[in-house]
């Protein structure tokens, strides 16, 4: 998972952020960050968790957890629709150009 995805889901990296080595410490407990607005992340099976610090969020997102699948699906549909409409607009423009040139 790249840092862009982390920023998209968890927000900007805090100044001086140091990624802790969580995997080598099985007893690691995440500390709540009172200044961090909680985020909900999902896995591929539709399970979700609330993360309460950037450290925790970054850990989950790096591990493959993602944003709301419903939201992603809707966003994809919205993007696809706008690309389709853009395509129609380009087609209309080209059709008009070619049609007008042929007519002339």
């Amino acid at each position, binding site marked *: 998972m790249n840092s862009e995805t982390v920023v998209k889901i968890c927000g900007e990296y805090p100044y001086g952020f140091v990624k802790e080595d969580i995997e080598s410490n099985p007893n690691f407990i995440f500390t709540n960050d009172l200044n961090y607005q909680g985020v909900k992340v999902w896995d591929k099976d539709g399970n979700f968790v609330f993360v309460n610090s950037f450290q925790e969020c970054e850990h989950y997102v790096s591990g493959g957890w993602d944003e709301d699948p419903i939201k992603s*699906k*809707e966003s994809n549909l919205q993007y696809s629709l*706008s690309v389709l*409409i*853009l395509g129609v607009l380009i087609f209309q423009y080209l059709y008009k150009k070619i049609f007008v040139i042929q007519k002339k």
Partner: protein
Amino acid sequence: MKKIKNNIVILKVIFILVLIIAPWINADYFDGIKAQELVQEDSSFYEINPCKVSLSEFIINEFNSSYQDHYFFRFNDNSSISCFGRVSGVTQINNSFYISIGTNSIINLIIQGLFWITLISFIKPDKEKIQIGQSYYAANLLAVMYFCYSIFAEKRFYEQKLYLFDLTKNISFIILFVLLFFIIKNLNDVIVKRFYKLINFLPVTYLLIGVFSGYNLTIYSFILITFGFIALITKEYNRNINLTYILFTIFWIINSTDRFSFYPDKLRGFTSTSYDFNSVLSWAIFVFLLINGLIYLFRKAKDSLDLEKLLNVFCISGISILILGYMGANFPIINFFNYYYFGQQKYGVKIQNPFSFNQWGEKIAWRGFYPSAESIGEYFGLILILIIFMYFKNRKLSKLHLVTILVSLLGLYFSDNRSAFILTLLTLTYFLLTTIKLSNKIKLLLLTSTLLTLIFFVGFQNLSYPYIFTSEYFLNKAIQFKSEGATSSSLNYLIYVFESKSISYYLFSILGFLTFLLNRSIVWGMFFSRYNPSAYEFLLGSGPFNFGKLYSEVPINEPGYLLLPHSSFLSFMLFYGIIGIFLILFYIVKKIITERKNITPEGYIILLFIFLNIIKNDTLNYLSSFTLYSFLTYMILNTNIKKKFYR
């Protein structure tokens, strides 16, 4: 050539049918989930399986829902794209079922936009196309940018309407830009080819209201705002109006430091949904462009006005409105489709019998298809007046006119708009007295019967109350609505005036008496219990088409539903202040005086009709009425077309 044209018409009809049918058959037919019958005891199936059954499956399975009066289909614009046209839930309230149909505002823009563009394209194009030049493309782009800004400015409204659409992200506005550009560009391409014919189709705006479901936008704003930009780019505007308006705008935006929300209800499409800096600025720009767009349209197309065509469009629209209103009241599915495909601000009325009375024996105002009973009553009254003009001009009536007379009389009765009826009656009496040779006895009989009808409509009992009671009735009502601990500045002033018995007292007591006769004491009393302007706001207003401050600033003991001021004059006092109203009146009166020799009685009758309805109705808060009345006023005050208008 003719064959190609026929094929295009067939293709358009097929496209319209696709737009009507396709959205409502959207479902996964292989998921094994079939529509189930709704029963009073259990409607859990649709709660467990939201967005699984299409509307058509539901109707086929439960055909009685399309005509039985305890079913109500309602749009849920805040649904996902994939849920479009499917049953997203069912709620049972008492014995009625409310079936929520998933729709998505983004898709609505495409479907409704394409549907209306295709309908407009059926109008035959002009023989000679209007020459706009390169400004057309710039105007289209600017119009799209403006509408994106208007959505940004009314974020609070759109957050509830656009499903999972993040209005804080730039990409969302890029998507909106693409979609709006697609609709606005194609719409204007169709419109400019028919520019000169548009003016004869203005009454259609009462039938095809054109408000997008889930938006505070109408298709007509797209057209008029583009024209507004064209007028500005080509410098075809009224400099004085624009400069004065800009001065007002500067005050409104400096003054907009508070934040209030307003639920638009039946004003959707022509009112701001919030009062704050951005929405005040957005609506100030909107009205600025609207005025420029309307003037541009009227100036350019005035010579194409064909009164007979205009009247025929009035007639056909009037008949359709009544029929669709009646069908919508009796068939839930027609009510549902009326809302979507005609772009209504709110659903048609549920009252099935337009002749019904309440428990006190008073006629219930039946609005049918249109959002306001008063406004549609005016529309039918106006049709009757225009038919009277036409009859006395040509001394003949077509079958369409005869049917329309019957329909308009019914529509006028159903709407219970007494003032429109009185004005129609007075018009008829005037023409009978001035154009037909009648004996003095018949003239006297005619005048007496008209006067008696007038008194009957005002109400005999209303004239029998003491003046002190009737003149202070609206003030007492305003005090009744006042909640403890908060009194509006206007009510404070009225209380002072009535207590001090100064010169202003006599003026306000006469106004109070007229208010009583016009049956406006309660609603105007309620307005003054709310209206809380500062001195500057009283003079210059708080911004166009913005009720947010009025309805949220001072809490009152309100009835629990939206009750508008019932006077466009009061609404305009709120929007433009007393100076704004004075300037508008000054401009019109000055124009009447300079053109007085060219204005015939018919012109004065229409001006009087418009003026009285502006005083006692919310009529100018609807885009259809605003456009139509502006057009009629412009045409009457414009001497170049007088030959067409008058005998």
